[in-house]
């Protein structure tokens, strides 16, 4: 048997790109890593594998905890981790879903080609930057009242449509049509709502951004056509989440669960894995609050995208209706889903932290537009590297609880990045050598997000494609990038 030794943890090769850490000690199930050896070399450099092992201690975890090809160390649960946990006698763990609830990505198609935009990049990046709120304290597209926040939490993108921030087709191209009906706004704290009020429609900072991109490669013509993608086409990618509101929901419940379910926590190897037993009041409350935060994040991305749509329509003399949402994917999310476990259908809380749902064609959860072709999956790259559009692969349900990667994991810490790069140089380099125009609230953010600090997204996507969990459809390359 081929094995891989990583600092005291031995992985056994199950088949190409699938590695298993066998069950031992208090692990309830084995753990699996989906990676090439090249990616495994990177994954095993930090605490990712230990955190993945720890995740298998969660009560009710099924089959195996899985690490996606872009996995890296998180807090408690690794980023790129997926765990399917029995929704009847297992548990739900906020830390295994992440602080930024429904952090995710959406892509909007346009009728423009690269030639239409060439020569006007500076104007485009400046206008987008002036119109899309970014950074800390930059406000939002919409200045909400307390009542607005309640509505957003309850109704999701339906609220945005009613308020004139969406086109009807935006709802057709979003998971759950942009509204999680399990949302319970009354379970979201006042503190969280206070933080959300002035952040409706804002990018925030860190690795979040809005990018105008051009399609450079198409790998599956038939699928690309269904997605409205072709070479040289201009698209817009938005990467952000639920801002302070979602973070506060996670923090609030982490603390409450820690106090109420201390017994369960005592048996877990990491405090960040704090979990509420399925069926408990706190599990229900957290699920309702999380679903409300998911709605908030959808509205957030919707408002940012719609603002960009208006800006582009004005600059290029287009009708807003000519720019359609391709799809919106979440990569920090917990959802009740039915999966086949040992031949039986079971309802699970599928925890995806830094992992994207990637359902294949035929799944009833998919919107009508994509039911026959498979769910679009959007994988953002870094500023100087491409992003990818995939579609849910037919093996994803068996291999990864219907999931694939979420992007290029970080390679270099933020502090180190700032020592190695200077924001101004990174910006000028990208403009002069790659024709990528970047504008940010903070120069430090540009340095911290420099192309060199991320892993190679090409290899991540190659492995996803080879495993048949997310099939490569198209690759895009940045034209303009704005960030906090």
């Amino acid at each position, binding site marked *: 048997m081929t094995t891989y030794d990583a600092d005291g943890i031995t992985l056994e090769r199950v088949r190409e790109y699938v590695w298993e850490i066998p069950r031992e000690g208090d692990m309830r199930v084995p753990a699996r890593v989906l990676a090439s050896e090249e990616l495994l070399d990177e994954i095993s450099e930090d605490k990712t594998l230990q955190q993945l092992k720890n995740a298998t201690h969660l009560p009710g975890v099924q089959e195996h905890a899985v690490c996606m090809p872009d996995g*890296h160390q998180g807090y408690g649960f690794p980023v790129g981790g997926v765990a399917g946990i029995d929704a009847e006698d297992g548990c739900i763990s906020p830390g295994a879903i992440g602080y930024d609830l429904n952090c995710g990505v959406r892509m909007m198609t346009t009728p423009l080609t690269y030639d239409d935009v060439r020569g006007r990049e500076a104007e485009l990046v400046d206008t987008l930057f002036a119109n899309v709120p970014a950074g800390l304290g930059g406000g939002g597209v919409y200045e909400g009242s307390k009542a607005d926040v309640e509505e957003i939490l309850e109704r999701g993108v339906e609220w945005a449509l009613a308020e004139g921030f969406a086109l009807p087709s935006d709802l057709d191209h979003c998971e759950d049509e942009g509204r999680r009906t399990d949302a319970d706004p009354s379970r979201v704290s006042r503190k969280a709502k206070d933080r959300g009020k002035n952040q409706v429609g804002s990018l925030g900072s860190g690795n979040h951004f809005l990018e105008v991109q051009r399609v450079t490669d198409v790998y599956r013509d038939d699928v690309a056509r269904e997605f409205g993608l072709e070479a040289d086409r201009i698209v817009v990618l938005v990467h952000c989440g639920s801002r302070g509101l979602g973070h506060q929901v996670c923090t609030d419940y982490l603390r409450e669960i820690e106090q109420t379910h201390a017994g369960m926590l005592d048996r877990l190897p990491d405090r960040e894995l704090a979990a509420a037993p399925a069926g408990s009041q706190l599990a229900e409350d957290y699920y309702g609050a999380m679903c409300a935060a998911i709605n908030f994040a959808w509205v957030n991305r919707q408002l940012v995208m719609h603002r960009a749509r208006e800006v582009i329509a004005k600059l290029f003399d287009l009708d807003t209706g000519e720019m359609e949402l391709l799809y919106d994917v979440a990569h920090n999310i917990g959802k009740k889903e039915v999966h086949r476990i040992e031949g039986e259908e079971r309802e699970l809380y599928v925890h995806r932290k830094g992992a994207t749902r990637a359902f294949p064609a035929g799944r009833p959860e998919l919107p009508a537009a994509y039911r026959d072709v498979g769910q679009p999956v959007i994988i953002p790259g870094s500023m100087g590297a491409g992003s990818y559009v995939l579609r849910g692969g037919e093996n994803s349900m068996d291999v990864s609880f219907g999931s694939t990667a979420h992007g290029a994991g970080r390679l270099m*810490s933020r502090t180190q990045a700032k020592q190695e790069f200077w924001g101004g140089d990174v910006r000028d380099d990208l403009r002069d050598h790659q024709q990528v125009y970047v504008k940010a609230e903070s120069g430090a953010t540009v340095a911290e997000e420099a192309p060199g600090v991320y892993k190679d997204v090409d290899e991540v996507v190659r492995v996803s494609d080879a495993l048949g969990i997310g099939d490569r459809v198209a690759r895009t390359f940045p034209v303009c990038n704005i960030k906090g």
Partner: protein
Amino acid sequence: MSYALRDHTADVAVEATGETLDSVFEAVADGMAAAMAESIPEGGERFSLAITAEGREQLLFDYLDDLIYERDVRGTLPIDNRATVSAPSESEGVADGGGGRWRVEATARGVALDRVEARDLKAVTYSEMDLSQTEEGWHAYVVFDV
């Protein structure tokens, strides 16, 4: 008291020391501000906050969480932090079987965010958190989600 920003792959960590629990709390809070902004101008009004929690580490967690909340709601970056930490009183400890509340009374100078070139810091985490007594006083290590 002093703090330093430490390397962490995806996030940012603050390591701090202080002679007393008060000063180590202050140092972590100032370190958190430094993780958001490299230079901070003068001015801004001071505001106060008071937090209680079931343990020392939990108190530090909740204190930092509340500073992030105040930042978002007030639209100001909290700096020049002052904190007074108190242990559960003995009577409280006896009354509820030792499960009394730790308390911090704190103030901070809030500098308007539009005057600062600042980056977001999303949340406090328990990941690798340390708050321990040393020969010189107190040591703390906190990882923040960026």
